[in-house]
């Protein structure tokens, strides 16, 4: 396994380099420029715009800019945002806690919904519970998050006036008050995201459990007199969950990518909204920083998922 791990890590380096080249080229070729808003302002003379472009090296050839960026990254300098004039790593770090809190909580909610519902549906396939759960799951992942988000806002914020719908990352209160307010403002975005994710995971868990529950050793366990609950939990679920665990590991990077649409609707200051703002404003350093982090995480979690799968299932061997 050590051999396998080393090989994977070595392959990761050129993959990351390749990803960064593609990202950088696409961004450089994309239309628009970061100082576009100034173009419409008659009081900003063209000379200042030119000076800003020269200062940030925007007029250098693409390959020169790329190596400049790469060298800086290797030294630990993640760049300087054109739009906010703040270091990119500071910008990203500011948004990480909120992203982890909201998106992380939604993944936990998704799991908490998908596992019991999926397992129970598979244990009693085609029963009433199963049919209702499946229908709801299909409805859940067909409705886009902006639609469910707006529905929840209209219901809970406007009609009932129970919950605030603008997320505030800094609440001027402490202790119980703080938690209470935090929960109130997080319920809607977490629910929207969690249920969307949970809907597709429910189906996945259900099919994984169904695959295992038909196998001979389950029948053996039952015929040996074990309780149904023990058969399910100890034998079926543990084996059925192997593919589910790898699926969850593969979707972990999403937590950091954030959920762009939900963040826009609820004004959650997460990494997703940072990325979309930077893209729309052509703020190249920020986009490079965020997408690079994201690609590192994807590669890293792919590696973890592979290792985990091999560890959980002894039939798999590394080559």
């Amino acid at each position: 396994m050590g051999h396998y791990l080393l090989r994977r890590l070595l392959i990761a380096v050129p993959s990351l380099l390749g990803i960064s080249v593609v990202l950088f080229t696409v961004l450089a070729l994309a239309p628009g420029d970061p100082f576009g808003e100034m173009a419409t302002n008659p009081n900003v003379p063209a000379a200042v715009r030119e000076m800003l472009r020269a200062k940030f090296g925007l007029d250098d050839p693409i390959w020169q800019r790329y190596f400049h960026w790469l060298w800086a990254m290797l030294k630990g300098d993640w760049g300087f945002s054109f739009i906010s004039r703040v270091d990119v790593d500071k910008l990203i770090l500011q948004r990480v806690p909120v992203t982890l809190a909201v998106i992380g909580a939604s993944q936990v909610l998704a799991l908490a919904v998908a596992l019991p519902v999926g397992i129970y549906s598979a244990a009693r396939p085609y029963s009433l519970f199963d049919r209702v759960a499946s229908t709801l799951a299909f409805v859940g992942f067909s409705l886009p998050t902006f639609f469910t988000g707006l529905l929840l806002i209209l219901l809970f914020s406007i009609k009932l006036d129970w919950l605030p719908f603008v997320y505030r990352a800094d609440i001027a209160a402490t202790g119980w008050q703080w938690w209470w307010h935090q929960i109130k403002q997080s319920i809607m975005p977490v629910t929207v995201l969690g249920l969307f994710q949970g809907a597709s995971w429910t189906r996945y868990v259900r099919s994984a459990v169904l695959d295992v529950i038909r196998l001979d050793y389950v029948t053996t366990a039952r015929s040996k007199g074990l309780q149904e609950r023990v058969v399910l939990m100890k034998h079926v679920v543990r084996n059925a969950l192997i593919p589910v665990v790898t699926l969850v590991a593969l979707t972990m990077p999403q937590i950091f990518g954030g959920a762009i649409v939900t963040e826009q609707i609820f004004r959650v200051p997460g990494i997703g909204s940072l990325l979309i703002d930077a893209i729309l404003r052509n703020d190249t350093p920020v986009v490079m920083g965020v997408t690079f982090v994201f690609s590192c995480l994807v590669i890293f979690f792919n590696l973890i998922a592979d290792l985990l799968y091999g560890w959980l299932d002894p039939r798999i061997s590394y080559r």
Partner: protein
Amino acid sequence: MKERELRALIEDVRTGLVPRRSFIQQMVGLGLSAPMASMMLMHAGIAQAQAAPIYKPAKRGGGGPLKLLWWQGATLLQPHFANGTKDQEGSRIFYEPLAVWDNDGNLVPVLAAEIPSRENGGLAADGKSVVWKLKKGVTWHDGQPFTADDCVFTWEYVKDPATAAVTIGVFKDIVVEKIDAYTIRVTFNQPTPFWATAFCAAEGMVIPKHLFAPYVGAKSRDAPNNLRPVGTGPYKFVDFKPGDIVRGEINTSYHMPNRPYFDTIEMKGGGDATSAARAVLQTGEYDYAWNLQVEDEVLLRMEAGGKGKAQISPGGDIEFIQLNPTDPVNEVDGERASIKSKHFAFSDPAVRQAMALLCDKKSMQQFIYGRTGFATGNFMNNPPRFRSPNTRWEFNIDKANQILDKAGWKRGADGVREKSGKKMKFVYQTSINPTRQKEQAVVKQAAQKAGIELELKSVTASVFFSSDVGNPDTFGKFWADMQMYTTTMTAPDAQRFMDQYTSAEVSQKANKWQGRNICRWINADYDKAALAGASELDPIKRAAIYIRMNDMVVNDNIVIPLISRPRVRGASLNLVTSLSGWDLDLSALQNWYREA
């Protein structure tokens, strides 16, 4: 309006026959801005109305939190690096200029002790210098005193091209010298009629010398105070997350008595205009929202909840269509839409006139904009009650048909008009914005009835409004037959606004399409008038010149003004704000309070 008539009107104001307010409104009706009209009266020696704002609270503080919603969040807090008004507004919470413009166009002193005028010796007779007297006893948030040194430093900082400040246009052609600790003189290198540019309004915020002095020029981006503003404003800096939130707390040593009312201030960013309107008007979660570009129908429905109201203040912004007199398709000397080429249809004034007759501005106002826009025939703003006697607009499809028939454009077999084998098929481009797409549809429908086929094109706003040389779809390139957008009047004076049609500003390859004369209009009379207006000291003569310039542009039909767009903001019912259409939303932030 002729100069003689203007002078007579001003005399009437002096004798009291015509109220000052009414004069300003009439001038705005002719296309001038309220500050310009106010300057005209000041020049004639008519004292400014002592605009004392209504401010009821009898003590400082105690008002609780003030929550503002800016759906484009501020990304930096240094006023001289601002990328657009959102950053200027964020900075305005902490920094202040010497004077600001109120809604009636009066200059209101903030850090200045009084407004310079002929009487108090502030304005020189030759129009080349202004003496500002600064308020005494003002301190920066860190306790240091505010003096003339800070103003002189601000000028040095901004005028240095290595600093790359975006407000350089206002500070580079002047000389600022300190007369004593609380007096400065601003000298222009030629007689300047509209002198209230340096140190006024959004571009004139003063920054502290003792904190920024080590960071002039190339080191400007390293200043720690770029992210931690220390100003003289009503609120002190607490926290800032770019694009997300700006927080401030009350400045207990603020230089105006009993102000500010609120204990803390928060400016939250992100999201879109409709949800911002919802948060203020429907749920009351926030007290104020900026720039509600939402359809009036939706706004009215939200106001029915009774928690807030949309505030509409007139400004100089105008939504208009440009017709391209050059050929956007074929290259001449390697350049498309070159001034050396001619458009096969729009170089004919009759076609332009017909096009102007096909824009149904009234329907646009009624069905799309509602209260948030007024149909106008002037390039400079125009409230509905006062029509300029010089420009007329109408929507008349039959007349357009007649004009086109007479000009030799005959309908072909498919109903589209043609002449010498060229069909009237135009590309009409604008940015992606639901309101604009609706406007495009309105114009297309009318044009169809006149035998003109319009192909509608919409470009993402961040690309359309950029100055990217490599992209063919920017508004500066104008590689289409017609385009439409809103141009904002960023300064209250018409000079900078109107000189965008001079031939020196023609947008072309040589200046990387960064010239502001995007419709490549060249008119010798207009250039002469622009030169005259820039150096004319007598504001009345100047006003007459600008009215004439407006008429020239509009009557030639090279631009078709559509809708004059006032500023629309949302505020909760019990919030008392002093909003101006000629300056930033937060220009009078210290006067905001909540009625019990």
